[in-house]
């Protein structure tokens, strides 16, 4: 599905989705700098060990939005936590003023963290500490329980939506990059012939990596254009492409969520 459509579904709500720049987003300033740094390091370590992505978000208020919607919008906006093939993202979401919290579980971890387990973590480990005013301890206990529950690996994906959820621009980018490289290798041929060969390569590569007609069509057109470019223009485009890929911080990797998890109150 087109991401914009999904976004439009929720466009009526007031909740302001916080941006994900780190694994711990404390928009309510509930944690000390030391607690946040320790949690961040713990989550990064967990991600390197298991490949799963777990993020913690603390907001001041939901602005009247149901927490299930706010939490799902947050993972969707964040380029989806977890790997695109394994769908192994987790979000621990806390709204202080409403005294509500939620564990959002990606499709691939629904086996490791069934709703009942998520519910018990919130009810038995997190809620009592939050009620006692120990926010840092509550969040640490909740994340440790989630880490323990998912340390044993992924239980396989369920309930796949469709391949249309995958970002087609990444595929197009790859096709264009391949075309630029081949175009440079074929610079001795005539532009017409080079254009056709590069377009054919674009069709082939586009079909193999995405299977999407749109990507193939864009690849074919881009191939004709790229093949007709003079050598120095291709070099310039290639350097531009390389610069664009660098410099990103923490981000989700396209994992999908279907509303699994549990909501808790304290």
């Amino acid at each position, binding site marked *: 599905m087109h991401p914009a459509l999904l976004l439009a579904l929720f466009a009526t709500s007031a909740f302001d989705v916080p941006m994900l720049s780190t694994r711990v987003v404390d928009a309510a300033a509930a944690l000390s700098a030391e607690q946040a740094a320790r949690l961040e390091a713990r989550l990064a370590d967990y991600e390197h060990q298991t490949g799963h992505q777990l993020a913690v978000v603390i907001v001041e208020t939901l602005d009247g939005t149901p927490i299930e919607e706010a939490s799902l919008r947050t993972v969707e906006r964040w380029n989806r936590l977890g790997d695109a093939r394994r769908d192994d993202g987790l979000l621990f979401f806390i709204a202080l003023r409403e005294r509500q919290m939620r564990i959002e579980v990606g499709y691939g971890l629904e086996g490791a963290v069934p*709703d009942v387990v998520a519910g018990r973590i919130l009810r038995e480990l997190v809620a009592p500490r939050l009620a006692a005013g120990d926010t840092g301890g509550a969040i640490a206990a909740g994340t440790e329980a989630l880490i323990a529950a998912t340390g044993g690996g992924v239980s396989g994906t369920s309930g796949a939506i*469709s391949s249309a959820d995958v970002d087609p621009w990444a595929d197009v980018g790859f096709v264009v990059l391949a075309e630029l490289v081949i175009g440079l290798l074929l610079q001795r041929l005539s532009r017409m012939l080079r254009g056709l060969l590069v377009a054919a390569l674009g069709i082939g590569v586009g079909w193999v990596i995405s299977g999407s*007609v*749109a990507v193939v*069509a864009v690849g074919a*057109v881009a191939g004709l254009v790229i093949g007709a470019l003079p050598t120095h223009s291709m070099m310039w485009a290639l350097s531009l492409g390389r610069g664009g890929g660098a410099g990103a911080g923490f981000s989700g990797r396209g994992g999908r969520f279907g509303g699994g998890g549990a909501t808790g109150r304290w």
Partner: protein
Amino acid sequence: MHRRIHLAAFVIASVVVAGCGYNGVIDKDEAVKAAWSEVENQYQRRADLVPNLVATVKGASAFEAGTLTAVIEARARATSVRVDASIIDDPKRLEEFQQAQQALSSSLGRLIAVAEAYPALKASDTYRDLLVQLEGTENRIAVARGRYISVVADYNAYVQRLPTSIGAALRKKSTRPTFNATTHDAEIAPKVGF
């Protein structure tokens, strides 16, 4: 020279075919079917949960019988609606399915509300776990329905808009009914909570 022209004609022809939606409509169609099967799965998941919930609530001393009977009957009606691949093309049956599921939502909502008056039941771990599962299932239903609505909107636009409507017509694909987001909506179902 001839070969070049053939090659160029082939490239242009493939771009034209790709643009008219003859192949694209297949992807859109599959997306609708996949989104529908997720909706159906989640409703089924809820139906599977109901007998457990009823059994647990029955265990509570002198639980109001009428509320329980209403849930059992609503579940029976919801699961008796024939659901096969063609339901997504049939507005009447989709509406029937939706109303039966909505009736089950309401009766479950009443059951949860009545259960508030039974402190021993409310405090039991079995009941709490069942509530979490029911809540999770209702949430999954809401998400699956929301995605279905948007996937069908995408599909419907694709089969009606030029030039992709040409390819869709060649494949005999027309617009589909969808859930009514304002009236019979799972999102406005009674909220399950502690």
